């Protein structure tokens, strides 16, 4: 935990990281981690499912691209502030253009659109040294309690 200034307020920020091998068999662990983070943050069941889904897509992409990563790892990190949960997925691989037949072409290209549909913000950074996807979801505000007395 660390405290950072945000405007005129000070908000509590929690952060954690996880590094995992770029292997398909790790996807279940990535979803479990994302689910625990989302639940602890206070997302409701629907929002948790959506968040986990988006994370799974980002990690899947990282595993695909990250095959050329020197250490073969995918890096996950989480930052949570007062009302926003952000999950970053990074790999150090490179994009390649696969040679696809028509059926294979039809198979591709839905991941990013799904991510965008299921979380509030998707940021994609493609750099020579790798790729990072940042997924953010905002927690629904707590209902305002009526003042009494």
């Amino acid at each position, binding site marked *: 935990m660390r405290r950072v200034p945000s405007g005129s307020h000070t908000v509590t920020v929690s952060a954690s990281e996880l590094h995992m091998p770029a292997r398909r068999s790790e996807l279940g662990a990535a979803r479990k981690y994302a689910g625990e983070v989302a639940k602890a943050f206070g997302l409701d069941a629907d929002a948790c499912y959506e968040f986990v*889904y988006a994370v799974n897509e980002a990690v899947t992409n990282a595993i695909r691209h990250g095959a050329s990563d020197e250490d073969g790892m995918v890096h996950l990190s989480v930052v949570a502030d007062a009302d926003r949960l952000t999950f970053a997925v990074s790999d150090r691989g490179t994009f390649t253009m696969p040679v696809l037949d028509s059926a294979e072409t039809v198979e591709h290209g839905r991941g990013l659109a799904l991510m965008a549909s299921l979380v509030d913000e998707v940021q994609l950074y493609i750099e020579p040294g790798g790729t990072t996807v940042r997924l953010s979801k905002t927690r629904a505000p707590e209902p305002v309690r009526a003042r009494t007395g």
Partner: protein
Amino acid sequence: MRSFYIADDVQIDDDDCPDVAVVALGGEVDYEVSPQLRTRVVRAIKEGRRRLILDLTDVTFIDSTAIGVIAGAVERLDEAGGGSLAVVCTHEKVLQILEITGLDSVITLYRSRDEAVSALALAG
């Protein structure tokens, strides 16, 4: 313990449907599973099956790579001269993903395997 299963040896009690194949899946269908799904779908089409039923009744999660395999199956059936793909699904979240990706517009959705088999038998 695996979090999914996949089976393409599903028998249907209808001799009138020789070109029907059923592939049943369960659990979390992700990038670890989707290549296995593709293998089974491609094999069924190569064997001459033109009416495929994907039974997703027990599926709780389906990622974009598996959605892609299903869309690819529709394309492969077209390339093979035509066919149909029926998907059995009742899981609310899985249905939501089918809807977001627009897959629900290129497949026929059923609430049970029996319903899908009956519809294919009538169509056949």
